């Protein structure tokens, strides 16, 4: 087969005349698609602190605190797998298609959740008490609760 010199010239000249293939990032951003997995967002009004996202998250990025009534996500651990969105029984989690801004220090995004568990109705003492239909009451307390406090040390750079 024939060998040719300078075959790259056409490609290189084309690159010279073309607009840059990159975008100047903070000033301009690459368009996102409808399907892009950007970040997890929560509608805190619908959340009932059921802990399912916390337990099923493959990387343990989500931490739900039932006593403090907060839902927290460590964006650096989240792998955008969409699993929490799939398993959420109240459909309060959503995968937004834009990315969060880069962080300057490691921290969790903590969202307060205004949820008050319904008070169980008083029952006659003789009847066996049924299990509450609220997942908050039905689920056992997790043995090792993760630390929800954001780490106080900021990174050096």
């Amino acid at each position, binding site marked *: 087969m024939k060998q040719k010199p300078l075959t790259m010239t056409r490609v290189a000249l084309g690159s010279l005349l073309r607009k840059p293939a990159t975008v100047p990032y903070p000033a301009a951003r690459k368009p996102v698609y409808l399907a892009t997995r950007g970040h997890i967002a929560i509608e805190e009004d619908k959340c009932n602190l059921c802990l399912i996202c916390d337990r099923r998250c493959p990387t343990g990025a989500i931490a739900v605190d039932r006593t403090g009534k907060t839902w927290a996500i460590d964006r650096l651990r989240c792998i955008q797998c969409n699993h929490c969105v799939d398993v959420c029984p109240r459909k309060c989690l959503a995968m937004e298609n834009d990315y969060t801004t880069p962080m300057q220090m490691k921290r969790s995004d903590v969202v307060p959740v205004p949820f008050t568990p319904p008070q*169980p109705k*008083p*029952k006659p*003492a003789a009847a*066996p*008490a049924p*299990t509450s239909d609220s997942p908050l009451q*039905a689920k*056992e307390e997790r043995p090792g609760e993760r630390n929800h406090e954001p780490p106080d040390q900021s990174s050096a750079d």
Partner: protein
Amino acid sequence: MNAPAQTYSEIAPERLLEAANAQRAAGSRLVQICCSRLQHFELLYSFSRPHTIEHLRICIPDSRVALPSISSIYGGSFAYENEIHDLYGITFTGMNVDYQGHFFRTAIPAPMAVPPVCAAPAPKPNKPQPQKEPT
């Protein structure tokens, strides 16, 4: 799906070389060697020809049993054998390239030689039944 038929046959460790020779004579390609740590150690040698895959299963009770290396028959098997040696601690005799345990540099020697941790499912904890009236 016209996937090739897969056959599994169990052979004794002594007959491994003989079986590998037969595969070689039949023109098979060594696809892989896989070691599994169950309650015993189980090795699966896979050979493939067009339209068939044959798996030879060898069970050994513990990792102290040395196996003959098939690298004199299939030259590329040393990678699998060294991997199994480094991860499971099984010794192969007569490897054509023997790394003496330095192929995979793992922090713990033979890290995968421990039996499965969750072989049986943990019994589901019963839902806490409130015994008394909630106060």
